[in-house]
């Protein structure tokens, strides 16, 4: 009897409060490990040095942006990102279209395509290093070949899968109608399929951008800590200055890298938004 009495008077939390209680510790740990460090980085980049902690404004930014190697890093990062993402997206569109018309290949191709992105970089770069003979002294052309082909091999699969699934969603009726009206395959592709999957293409670009900002790992494994000029990215600058304990440079270049990647992301994101509103308007 007594027990039942107690149970009735237990505090009843609403479901929402319970969810917050479950999520709270996890979210706090996430904020502590990922968001707080980011804010600290921003704060560091505006300070004189770690010990005096005086606000100096954008002195460090002016310093690194006038540095020759940092400029090289920015230039290369933009170039490598644009090249890898662009090539992969184009090839993925082609392959997705081919798959769309040759559905018998889908099981084999999908099975093989998604494995590369899971493969450990060390194993893969062991092959790439020998085939492309990469080192700190590689010439520009072969360095680009090695990096871009590695990126395409790794991430084209996922891009193709995303686009292929979008292609399957295109209503067959529209295509049939266009075919009856005399549209060729090319016209159907350019006028119907491509506009229809534009939203998914922009999402794919977003995913590819995310992976291309992780490309530093492979470049590091291929070319080492001090790569040839063509492969010197902002991340190299950051880690070299980190090992020299130039923490202010590390912080300000990290914030610059963030700004750069946010620029890329928001360009794609705005494009995505525009496509969405156009689709809703139509």
């Amino acid at each position, binding site marked *: 009897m007594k027990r039942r009495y107690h149970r009735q008077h237990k505090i009843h939390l609403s479901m929402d409060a319970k969810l917050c209680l479950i999520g709270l510790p996890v*979210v706090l740990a996430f904020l502590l490990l990922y968001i707080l460090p980011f804010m600290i980085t921003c704060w560091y980049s505006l300070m004189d040095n770690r010990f005096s902690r005086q606000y100096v404004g954008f002195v460090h930014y002016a310093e690194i942006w006038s540095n020759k190697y940092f400029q090289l890093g920015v230039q290369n990062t933009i170039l490598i990102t644009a090249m890898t993402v662009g090539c992969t997206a184009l090839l993925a569109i082609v392959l997705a279209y081919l798959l769309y018309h040759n559905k018998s290949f889908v099981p084999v191709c999908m099975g093989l395509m*998604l494995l590369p992105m899971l493969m450990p970089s060390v194993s893969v770069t062991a092959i790439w290093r020998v085939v492309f003979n990469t080192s700190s002294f590689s010439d520009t052309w072969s360095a680009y070949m090695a990096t871009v082909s590695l990126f395409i091999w790794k991430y084209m699969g996922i891009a193709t899968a995303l686009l292929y699934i979008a292609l399957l969603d295109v209503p067959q009726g529209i295509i049939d109608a266009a075919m009856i009206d005399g549209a060729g395959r090319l016209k159907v592709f350019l006028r119907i399929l491509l506009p229809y999957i534009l939203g998914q293409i922009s999402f794919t670009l977003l995913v590819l951008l995310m992976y291309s900002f992780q490309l530093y790992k492979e470049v590091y494994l291929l070319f080492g800590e001090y790569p040839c000029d063509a492969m010197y990215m902002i991340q190299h600058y950051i880690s070299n200055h980190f090992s020299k304990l130039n923490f202010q440079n590390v912080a300000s270049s990290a914030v610059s890298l963030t700004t750069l990647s946010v620029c890329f992301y928001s360009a794609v994101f705005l494009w995505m938004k525009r496509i969405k509103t156009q689709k809703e308007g139509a």
Partner: protein
Amino acid sequence: MRIVAKVSMCIFITFFALPILCMICVSFMSVNDATALLGGKKIVSVALTLTQYKEAVLSNSFLLSFRNSAIITLYSLVLNIPVSLCAGLMLSRSRNRWRKLLIVLYVVAMLLPFQIIMLPVYELSLWSGLYDSYTAVVILNAFAPMGAVMVSVLIGTIHESQWEAAKLETNSAFSILWHILLPQMLPGVVALSILVFSQVWNMVEQPLLLIPDGRLKPLSLSFNDIVSASSNYTYAGAVLYATPIIVLYIIVIMLARKHSYVFGAVVDLM
């Protein structure tokens, strides 16, 4: 036209399969032959041997690093999945007014490169005394934002009316998660696990920053050093290191063929 399409399909398939096949073939030769073959030099005859595998299995530094990798990856995976489920549940179903902001923060943290938080994470690990230990890397991976974002996407695909109906039956969020949501998103969670596994198995930057001690380094980091010190099992080492990933992937693919819906979830997630 059809033939052109088929030929180009075959080219694409070879392109995807070739590096992995090369790696496996080359691991059964002696390292000198293998390097010459990959470098495009002509070889007269190739002898197949298991010497590379023998060397790799007998090498202490290789085995030690392999063990480190296994420990870090298993702990990270075991912690990351429940953590992601909790965070994902809150992100997708709570009506808290901070929810939107949190989702944005999670996505942003997922998208940005690791170098951005490198310096404070280093100082945090020094301050907490976890520097130079597995724990630092494991904790960092356990709370990685990717899992939470993906779980919240997965829960988002399940219709909200189920959640409302379940709420009338029980007041326990865990039992709703366990009995209603989890069975429906199991394929997705399997896909997420293999993705997290491969990411942790493959990480370079975090241990590079947090584990300077050579004896604690995972193989993803120390492989190049080990191999350049004694390069008589490079390719077998590469194959051995990729084996867990390949085996897991094949299991998932088999599952996907049995239950065709797994595949969609796998693709949605990656």
